[in-house]
């Protein structure tokens, strides 16, 4: 039996007692309703039975076992873990917004609809695109919308053989997975030694089957694709379209626009660039922007402004307005509450603030890159400027004293820093992808460098502490192999008791 002073680790089910309830939270009366016996539920599923205080205490304590932006520096490359201003949450949770049914008449939602229309307009402005749909519910769904639009564009022209999507080898895993979900074939092309697309390989891949190319710029390698205009020209000349993966938009916000680089479609991760919360893995929002060519294919609904006798009314544009639309991606209108948070953020940041975001995200990354290089860390692309992120490779540390990227990630946790992204991009061995974001101070970055130095020094002097790390967290290094081999995906009272007994 677990002792009584460790209720911290128990599951809510293990705190459950038959007959206990949070009485204020459900109707006092048990209504009498006629459900035919053959369709009715006869068993009692094992949901917890707990008091309100027990539930509050349980989840408060669970929350305290998390690292988060509010509590820790979180330099997770490719994820843009910047400060999530509290106002964005508290204002999005105003009752008029949270209480509105998605099918409520638009006349009962002009506050929300006005905000969404203005959000669409602002996103057009920052990306240089001419149409925006807010319905994709995450970056990967934005990608799906983008590739589906490219496919629909070719099909609408009778160009039905174009089914190849070119993807650089450094791309996010979602890119090839998305192309596959859209019924397209992936052609992977290699990256040159300095991190740019290999132009000769691109030329060789282009042809009459090319539907398009998916690019992230700056790329997942943390460098700007310098020959982007040449890439765009080559792809367009071959009849293909260009897809911009907006994962790294924070790097160029207010400085460069994907539309000006000749991209035809872009998805944005509003949960990265526009600071909506990551929420432990979601919800995100993957708004898409398009150029002229793809405008008819936008996913619906989209907010439109209609002139009426009483002034402008914001209404939904649907399949009637967009008969060639790729259709609907969500049951309603996408992650409306997330979009509202992004809107509030953009209004607080404003035009000048947008530019400063791109600038200071880049300043922080370049500063951190230089500090780490001076401390002896090897950069994956030493001749290049960092964008908003950069890559350190630990291949020599791994060879010399068996300090792997995984080890340093776990050791950083003991220094109260969240780990950078590890082992991505796949083509750089033992890599750390580090993205500080613009909201971190110089002192925080300096502290992180100090921790990195101490971990390597410890390893260099033969210490093995890093293999043991983390030692200061609620659990030590977890056995992932066991998790996959002996699947335990839900609590079952019997197995739990057996485990407790054997542990005692």
């Amino acid at each position, binding site marked *: 039996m677990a002792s009584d002073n460790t209720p911290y680790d128990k599951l809510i089910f293990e705190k459950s007692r038959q007959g206990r309830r949070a009485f204020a939270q459900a109707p006092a009366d048990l209504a009498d309703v006629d459900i035919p016996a053959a*369709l009715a539920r006869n068993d009692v599923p094992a949901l917890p039975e707990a008091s309100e205080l027990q*539930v509050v205490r349980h989840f408060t304590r669970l929350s305290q076992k998390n690292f988060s932006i509010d509590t820790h520096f979180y330099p997770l490359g490719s994820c843009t873990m910047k400060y999530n201003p509290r106002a964005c949450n508290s204002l999005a949770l105003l009752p008029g917004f949270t209480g509105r049914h998605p099918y409520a008449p638009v006349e009962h939602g002009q506050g929300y609809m006005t905000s969404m229309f203005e959000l669409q307009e*602002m996103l057009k402005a920052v990306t240089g695109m001419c149409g925006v749909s807010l319905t994709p519910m995450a970056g990967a769904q934005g990608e799906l919308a983008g590739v589906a639009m490219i496919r629909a564009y070719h099909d609408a022209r009778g160009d039905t053989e174009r089914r190849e999507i070119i993807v650089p080898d450094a791309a996010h895993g979602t890119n090839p997975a998305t192309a596959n979900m859209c019924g397209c074939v992936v052609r992977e092309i290699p990256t040159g030694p300095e991190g740019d697309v290999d132009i000769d390989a691109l030329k060789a891949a282009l042809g009459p089957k090319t539907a398009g190319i998916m690019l992230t710029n700056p790329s997942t390698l943390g460098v700007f694709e310098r020959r982007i205009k040449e890439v765009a020209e080559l792809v367009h000349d071959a009849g293909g379209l260009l897809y911009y993966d907006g994962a790294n938009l924070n790097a160029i916000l207010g400085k460069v626009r994907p539309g000006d680089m000749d991209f035809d479609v872009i998805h944005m991760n509003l949960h990265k660039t526009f600071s909506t919360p990551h929420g432990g893995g979601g919800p995100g929002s993957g708004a898409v922007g398009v150029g002229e060519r793809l405008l008819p294919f936008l996913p619906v609904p989209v907010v439109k402004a209609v002139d009426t006798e009483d002034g402008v009314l914001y209404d939904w544009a649907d399949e009637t307005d967009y008969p060639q639309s790729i259709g609907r991606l969500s049951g309603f209108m996408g992650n409306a509450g997330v979009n509202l948070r992004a809107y509030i953020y953009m*209004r607080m940041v404003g035009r000048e603030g947008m530019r400063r975001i791109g600038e200071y995200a880049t300043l922080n990354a370049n500063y951190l890159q230089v500090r780490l290089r001076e401390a002896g860390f090897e950069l994956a692309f030493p001749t290049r400027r960092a964008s908003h992120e950069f890559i350190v490779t630990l291949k020599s540390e791994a060879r010399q004293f068996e300090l792997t990227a995984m080890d340093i990630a776990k050791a950083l946790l003991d220094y109260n820093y969240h780990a950078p992204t590890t082992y991505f991009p796949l083509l750089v061995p033992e890599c750390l992808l580090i993205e500080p974001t613009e909201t971190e101070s110089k002192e925080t970055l300096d502290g992180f460098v100090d921790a990195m130095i101490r971990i390597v020094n410890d390893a260099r002097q033969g210490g093995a502490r890093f293999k043991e790390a983390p030692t200061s967290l609620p659990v030590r290094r977890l056995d992932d192999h066991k998790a996959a081999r002996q699947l335990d995906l839900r609590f079952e009272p019997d197995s739990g008791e057996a485990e407790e007994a054997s542990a005692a």
Partner: protein
Amino acid sequence: MAFIPHTDDDTREMLAAIGADSIDDLFDEIPKDLIIESLDGVPEALSEMHVARLMRERSRADSGKLCFIGAGAYEHHIPSAVWELTTRGEFYSAYTPYQAEASQGTLQTIYEYQTMITALTALDVSNASLYDGASGLAEAALMAVRTNRKAKSTDVLLAPGVNPVYRRVADAIAGNQGLNFDYLPVDRSSGTVDFAALDDDATPVAVVIQQPGFLGTLEDVDRLTDWAHERGAMVVAVVNPTSLAVLKAPGHWGGEGADIACGEGQPLGVPLSSGGPYFGFMTTKQKFVRQMPGRIVGRTTDLDGKSGFTLTLQAREQHIRRTKATSNICTNQGLMVTAATIYMSLLGFEGLRRVALASAANTAKLVDVLTAIDGIERAFPAPGFHEALLVLDRPVPPVLEALAREDIQGGFDVSTVLPEWGNGLLVSATETKTDQDIARYAESLSRIMAV
């Protein structure tokens, strides 16, 4: 006003360390003609005070209405503790739990969620959630195709109760992979499947059964599940989680139970919020776990043998498998699942049952008083759950507009998605509605219908 902490001294020192003269120098690898001067089209910054004032005005404009709309999203009481806890910074501003040791709060919450949602659906395993109910059905259909390797067909047959919007979403997401979605024949007197008209030679890869149906109907799920299984099809259940407190769980449908259950998680503590963010849940039988899309959390042990939680079966996922992944999804709706887990913990099965029964009872009351009005009839006989289709003797839109002018949201105009049901008005009254609310709606509607 970006949230940037740098003082002028900081910026100078940092540039000096880099060896750059200005921040502009850091962008010197970007072709000059791509750099823009200013972001026209984005307004000047507002302080938090000014944004707060603006948003309060807008929120006020949208509030204070009496809502009888369901159609896939339902207004339920949400205990204060749910969002007080969910928006704690430690949950709110954390990311996907890649570093398990630093994410035990999120991971244990998801493990508890998986346990609760498998209990509700009476199936073995759950993922950590998908985007929403509609896209969840698309993912379930794709999973059924991957799993049912013996089936030659790519036809997915839908019971008449399947939400027509879900069908459109499934088309948009899964259509490019060659799946065909088609409805089974409907018995117009009941709104449920017409068993006599079923094609017994059909060999679909999957049959989707929604319970309760979009129009508030209750399907004979046992019989339809068995029919589908006899044809070698996978059975995908689309269910409302609140209803599972009173209706038979998918795992118990027919002789073998449904193979996959999915649905919209919104009723479990997630606000209506104009349509999102919500979450889609998905559960299945143990033997199909490796074909499931999305994140999955498992329990394991640490170096000291202590119990802990981690993401598992990641070999199915896009960041490892790339083109061969089960889906491109890398999100779970973590925050919404946190809310749902807290909601289910506070209500327990007994609380959920009371909510379900009160909603069903209120809807029955609503239907009684509305059908007493001349020109309004019930489309299908009882029983139902917490939603019912009414048929009006005139077009629905002007009636809803007149109600809206009195701040009543009278229901969902079915003709926008299913014109074959004529002047159909879909209404729902959850436990949040009082007898006075229902009387107010009936009084207004009877006045409007008298014209």
